């Protein structure tokens, strides 16, 4: 028996490490999530209906998902330019710029929240430029998009960089030497190869933006129906000890975000199936 076990697992410590992993994971993650699940099933339909039919909830969901999509899109566009520049055009100081890309990840969200609010408020350095045009950024939905863009940037750049490093410039050069225009080479040679990485980066930035709380609460102004995000709505319910309402909101948010990420994964899978036989 002892010999048989040894042959199956040559290295020691399987039981100990797996046991510890599963125990720690269960205590800290699985049991709490399961408790939320049980609570969600024990709620009556009325609780869900009251939450969903509240116009304030609808407005918050629209803002959260709309702003997160907008921010992830902006990040994919600019993140692509940043990643492209950093891999293809090394300029003096590009190493410092490269390290700075991770700032939104390293900077606590409360700090970025108050800094962005000061910057984009009507009297702030950037807000001042938009105020005469009648555009308000902080304390308006645009502010939410700004905060979520800040938060999501590193995810797109860091996903694209390895893909761009693997992309040999020879392919585009071949396309160019065969008479393709720069634009055509970009859209027919470069973009299809990068599509999986772009999609992953988009999905990661979106996932982060959907749950973001810290930076948004400062810049949004938290006006019900106008600039209130779902996380804030949950927070409000918790402060009133309305745990049933909070559970309903939390479960709906989690299901919607998992659904979106699942769809993006499916899309990814279809792309990779399409490109693999050709490549």
């Amino acid at each position, binding site marked *: 028996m002892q010999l048989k076990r040894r042959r199956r697992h040559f290295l*020691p410590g399987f039981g100990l490490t797996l046991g510890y992993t599963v125990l720690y994971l269960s205590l800290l993650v699985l049991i709490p999530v399961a408790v939320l699940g049980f609570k969600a099933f024990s709620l009556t339909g009325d609780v869900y209906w009251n939450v969903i039919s509240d116009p304030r909830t609808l407005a918050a969901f629209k803002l959260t998902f709309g702003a997160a999509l907008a921010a992830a899109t902006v990040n994919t566009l600019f993140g692509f330019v940043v990643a492209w520049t950093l891999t293809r055009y090394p300029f003096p100081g590009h190493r410092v710029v490269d390290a700075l890309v991770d700032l939104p990840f*390293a900077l606590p969200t409360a700090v970025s929240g108050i800094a962005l609010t000061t910057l984009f408020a009507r009297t702030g350095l950037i807000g001042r430029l938009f105020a005469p045009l009648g555009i308000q950024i902080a304390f308006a939905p645009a502010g939410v998009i700004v905060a979520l863009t800040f938060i999501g940037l590193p995810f797109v750049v860091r996903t694209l960089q390895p893909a761009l490093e693997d992309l040999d410039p020879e392919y585009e050069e071949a396309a160019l030497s065969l008479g393709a225009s720069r634009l055509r080479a970009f859209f027919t040679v470069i973009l299809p190869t990068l599509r999986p990485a772009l999609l992953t980066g988009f999905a990661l930035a979106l996932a982060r933006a959907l*749950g973001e709380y810290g930076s948004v609460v400062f810049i949004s102004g938290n006006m019900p129906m106008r600039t209130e995000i779902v996380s804030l709505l949950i*927070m409000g319910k918790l402060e009133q000890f309305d745990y049933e309402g909070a559970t309903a909101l939390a479960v709906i948010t989690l299901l919607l975000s998992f659904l979106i990420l699942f769809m993006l994964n499916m899309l990814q899978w279809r792309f990779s199936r399409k490109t693999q036989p050709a490549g």
Partner: protein
Amino acid sequence: MPGKKILSLWPKYCCIGITLVFLSLFLVLPLFIVFGEALRGGITTYLAAITEPDARKAIVLTLMAAAVSVPLNVLFGLAAAWALTKFDFRGKSLLLTLIDLPFAVPPVIAGFLFVLCLGTNGVLGPLLEAADIRIIFAIPGIIIATLFITFPFVARELIPLMQEQGREEEQAAISLGASGFKTFWHITLPNIKWALLYGAILCNARAMGEFGAVSVVSGHIRGATNTLPLHIEILYNEYNFTAAFAVASLLAMLALVTLIVKSALEWKLKRERQLQSLDEALLPERTVS
């Protein structure tokens, strides 16, 4: 030919220009704002804001949350990486997905999970109350929420690296008679030390900066359950902007240190991987000669 040269250079300058403008507006300017606003009232006001009793208590609590969650998550990361990369078993990919789960849960919902489990009206609420243990709206709650949020960081760095390194070296050590712990200490740990440090640094940055989850479980008791990010929120909402930014500058410095250590480690990891692949490329020649 000169015309073609100009044509091929404009995308380069365009890209560098867009990158620099975008990143200065979005990354550099906020950083300057933090330090600029913090020092607006002069150095004495700054020092007063970061040494007043409530700020000091917030610093201690933040350090404590990190001091508990980093070692615990390092230990978990090592155990999980060992189990997942050195053995084959059923349900491995499910376990991998579950380890990433805390990344997919929004912070506010993460905090709420623990209120549901451990709060007064929660599942274990009556039991904890009978034993006179307070977790939610107290320091243990803050530590548990921080543990949850920073849970996957170390495991996530170690698993791909140890997967890539394989099992041969450890198997050789064991077959030569080394004990399991000795093998881990002398073979595995030196191979993964930089990645381990990298994961711990990320874990630490997130632990000290976490806001949403901690905000839910803290109860906002000033001078008792406030971490640095929560202290910033209180000061800011009281329109005490200079003090808020002074405290924020401490966390901004932590972020800068994190970035510096992170890039140094990335450079080190990259170099080690290059050396390793060079080694592998040379290996066949060596066996021939």
